């Protein structure tokens, strides 16, 4: 799918519901392994924590505004 090469059905390898040729699948798997590092997870945790704090504040603001308008 990624390289847009035509691959016959017998040769196509399905991963997460998407057909890939062998080199593309190896690349995808390689990326999956590389990205599951400690740094990637830490960055995700920091981003998510920040987003969580902001969303809580915005939800409070939106609720107050919504109640006021009702």
């Amino acid at each position: 799918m990624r390289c847009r090469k035509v691959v016959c059905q017998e040769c196509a390898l399905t991963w997460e519901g998407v057909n890939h040729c062998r080199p593309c699948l190896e690349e995808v798997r390689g990326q999956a392994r590389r990205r599951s590092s400690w740094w990637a997870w830490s960055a995700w945790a920091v981003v998510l924590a920040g987003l969580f704090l902001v969303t809580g504040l915005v939800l409070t603001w939106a609720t107050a505004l919504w109640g006021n308008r009702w």
Partner: protein
Amino acid sequence: MSWRRGEEPGTLDLLDDGVELMTRSWSAVGVLWVLALPARAALALLLALAVKLGELSELAGPTFLPRSYLVLVLGIATVHGRLVLLQAYRRARTGPAPARWSSLRVPPGDLARGLLATLVVFLLLCVISPTLVLPPFLLPALGLASVVAAGAGPGWRHAIPATFAGYARPGRLAAVHGLLLLGWLVATLNLHLLVTLGAEAVVQLFSVDPAGWVARLSFRNPDYVALLLAGSSLCIEPLWLAVLAVHRDALRARSSGEDLRWWFEELRRQERREAA
């Protein structure tokens, strides 16, 4: 659940396939209901409190803040429940059912993607909520955030673009949401009737004062209305997710050649039938 080469499922096909998926995964539907109930009830009671406070709600920030965070913390369980259900839908189509408890396990990467995309969409929803007109446009994204979590690619950064890629067929998406909205209304009325009948039975059996029940179960009580809407939204949620999963698969099939594979399978099935 197979479409011919070049064919796309219509609105009713999506609903039909969604119902079929849901009826094959009842245990996962139960898991979603159990996990999503606390967050839904907390959100309903928060909004009901805002309605009750009315103009005073602008001064009630300190009251709303801990409740808002409670909604978000409980929401993590909702996302987990949705991913369990979507995993069950995928397995209902492709593979054998897993052992009892392992069906509750969700890959950490999927959960990370699902949480991130859901938080982003929910944040946008809160920001545009004062407009009252725009929020319905983001409702599909709230479900798609979980639907695409498993297939958004190896990196969690792909989750948000994949969520909004689900809008590729806006007409079909709008039509199916219109029908689901009608279903939500019917579910709300049915749930109200069920609760009223239950209350009537309690009054008859235990000789309770009916006046209190009538006041509590009236549409003038914001707590009751909010909880009723939350309950009926939970009833319709598994179907909503199933429809979105079918919609996403139909879109992805066009780009991946998956529809060609289904078509071959259909041809082989026909051949086998004719040979038999």
